[in-house]
């Protein structure tokens, strides 16, 4: 499934870029992330718990950053699997200055498998969008609280 969109954060690209490379910031921004542990250069092991209405599930997986071109773009690969299925997202994030802030455009592919894929068809798109939105909202509040 293709996923593309954009979100604007109220701080400049350099700041946004730097934050999104920082595992502590990622840990606090990825929705449901419980821990992020470095296992290699730009690669982290992640534990997360997804809670969405009645749905809840624990996932274990990885976050990997690649193709870094500061401060304008990088790729983020997120993989997780748990009892209710697995997810894999691979996307290019492009940062451009916009009115003193940064427009972060994302464009990528998401794969969902297992029970989640089979029963959540009509919800995957809406849910993915919400998760991404939450990520940027969290990023924004992390930035605000760090000021």
């Amino acid at each position, binding site marked *: *499934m293709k996923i593309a969109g954009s979100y604007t954060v109220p701080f400049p690209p350099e700041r946004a870029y730097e934050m999104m490379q920082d595992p502590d910031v990622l840990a606090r921004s990825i929705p449901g992330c419980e821990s992020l542990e470095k296992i290699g250069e730009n690669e982290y092991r992640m534990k997360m718990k997804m809670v969405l209405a009645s749905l809840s599930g624990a996932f274990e997986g990885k976050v990997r950053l690649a193709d870094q071109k500061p401060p304008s773009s990088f790729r983020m690969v997120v993989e997780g*699997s748990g*009892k209710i*299925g*697995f997810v894999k997202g691979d996307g290019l994030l492009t940062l451009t200055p916009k009115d003193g802030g940064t427009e972060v455009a994302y464009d990528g592919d998401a*794969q*969902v*498998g*297992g*029970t989640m*894929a*089979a*029963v959540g*068809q*009509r919800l995957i798109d809406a849910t993915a969008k919400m998760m991404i939105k939450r990520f940027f909202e969290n990023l924004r509040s992390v930035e605000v609280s760090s000021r």
Partner: protein
Amino acid sequence: MATTITKPETLVGKRIRRREDPRLITGTATYVDDIKMPGMHYATIVRSPHAAARIRSINTKKAAAHKGVIAVFTGKDTQKVGPVPCGASLPGLRVPHHHILAMDRVYFAGHPVAVVVATDRYVAADAADLIEVDWDVLPAVADPEKALAKGAPAVHPEWPDNVAFNYHQEGGNVEKAFSEADVVVKQRITSQRLIPTAMETRGVVADWRPADRQLNLYSSTQIPHLMRTLVAQMLGLEENRLRVVAPEVGGGFGSKLNVYAEEALMGFVAMKIQQPVKWIESRRENFLCTIHGRGHVDHYEVAAKRDGTILGIKLHIIQDLGAYHQLLTPAIPTLSVLMMPGLYKTQNVRADIVGVFTNCVPTDAYRGAGRPEATHGIERMVDVLAAELKMDPAEIRLKNFVTKEQFPFPTATGLTYDSGDYAAPLKKALDIVDYQNLRNEQAQARKQGKLMGIGMSTYGEICAFGPSPATPAGGWESATVKIDPTGKVTVMTGASPHGQGEETTFAQIAADELGVNIDDILVLHGDTAVVQYGIGTFGSRSTAVGGTAVYFALQDLKAKIKKFGAMLLGSDDVSFSGGQVICNKTGKSKSIQEIAAASYRAMKLPPNTEPGLISTHFWEPPNFTFPFGAHIVVTDVDRDTGAVAVRRYVAVDDCGNILNPLIVDGQIHGGVAQGLGQALWEQAVYDDNGQLVTGELMDYAVPKAHMMPRIESDHTTTPTSVNPLGVKGVGEAGTIGCSPAVVNSVVDALAPLGVKHLDMPMTPETIWKLIARSKS
């Protein structure tokens, strides 16, 4: 002087209510899941979430240690069990070894990898969650055309081209036909993957009696006897030590015409744990792991003369087989080839099939099995041709039909059509819809910019499977009829009805033949310990083949009854009628009850006659039967949304003699529902990674009662000479006739916009896009 005996009312041909229904509608029938046994254990199967992956390791420790779990088995434990059988043989067919549990690799999402056995099903489900599999996920391919492309992932590494077989058949002289043609029309036509969705999912109970070396297997199946033969082989058990029972079966539609891994697996488990074990398939498993139907991409070419005469047909089929061959997987598309000429005279055909492996659950027989695809193809092509030649679709059909005088008619594909009058149902259907007026109405509607369509299909099908040399497992059917000393009658049939109503129709046949009350007759089936042997219920065969076996068993029995009657009446000049043997001279008579009692008491026996009244007949049919009919569908397409509304559905079917019109109507209605499902709503969708995204009823759209149009059902009657009952079979007709009529109707509605073809399901969005495109 002969006394006149009033002939009792005959039952065959009457609208008799189904005798099996009271138990079904009062919820007192016994399905597999209703079976309870002391010491019953429950199994949950752990399945692959991935479509293609290597299994690095499986850790079962936590599951095995879970309280209430008594055993966990993986592929290593079950590797000595024989493979899931493929009953079809084609030259050069590649058959992957289909272990009942995956060994070191999985080939489709849902592939079984382990089984957890516990004291209750909740514990088993909890423990299944504790099994850890270390997967090495591999690229998968879920689309047959993509699987054929260069560089596609190999489903089975040993066959990198993903081709399981190539099949070629031809008749007549196709090249000549095409070279002489005025016009050649071509079209790519798909028949999407469908999920059979029987109301009852599959289920198995296995009960091992070690002291008797006896395994009792209860399975929701259409073929208990074949299953017994095959599962016994898989388990290495003597066949006579295995009893298979098909209890009440809540629908199959072909999906239970199979032997699955789970049947042998439960047998294996029961023998290991020495306790009974039950496995009930969830709906989700049913969608993932029970066979799917269809899965065709067809390329058609039809050559014709300018006057509409069809000269020849070329067909190239790409069949999506899935990851394995289930019982009949590779054979299904060959049925499409057999029926590719439809009802038309043409003697020049050529067909090629390429059977393709994909990382999906196998396809196999689903209501119609190969014939809906064939009918859809030829009936679409005839419309495409009619449009090209600007001919009326009814006219072009009437022009090309095999005519009444030509039967028995040898087809270019090697069949002999038994009997028919193909114009009759079409003409009747045209009358019912008032065709000419309808076309006038359509012309008016078009002037107002409305999208109204009239579509028809004239189908022919092959059923009553079938002469043994032409079938994978023998095509006869058996019957035993037994009259008890008190005169009550039991019919044991090798057919295995699961909704088709043979407990009623076979009782009607027996009641008429013996002249007894229908309530004195019991029809038994589906238990290998009760029924001699049998083939089962599928391919619209049970009445035409199984019913005929009953008929012949009854003839033998009647002869014996007459002998006993003659002896008791002391006369050779007797006749049998109305449940009595009557002396033609004196008018004296003996009832069946009296004769039955005497035959078992055996104080005296007629010459060369054994005591008792029991007769068994195995009937081998000399040919298939070929029912036919015409369906006409009127649709209205919403210009704004692309939504299709079916305004009228007229079905005129000819299934030979009708034993029970109520049951025939039911079969037509159900069949049409499934045909409409394919035409408008249903599709099994796998994503590029082999995930089944229509994995639940929330996304897989089976038709519901409120989505069905009223079906105006009528018949013509052309008896077959293949069997003495003159019956042909009707179980699949509705489905086979339906989908092309609906698609032809919608294409007709959209014709003013330049639309020439639509693939199924014809979703509103697809149609809306076509409408939008025609505007721009």
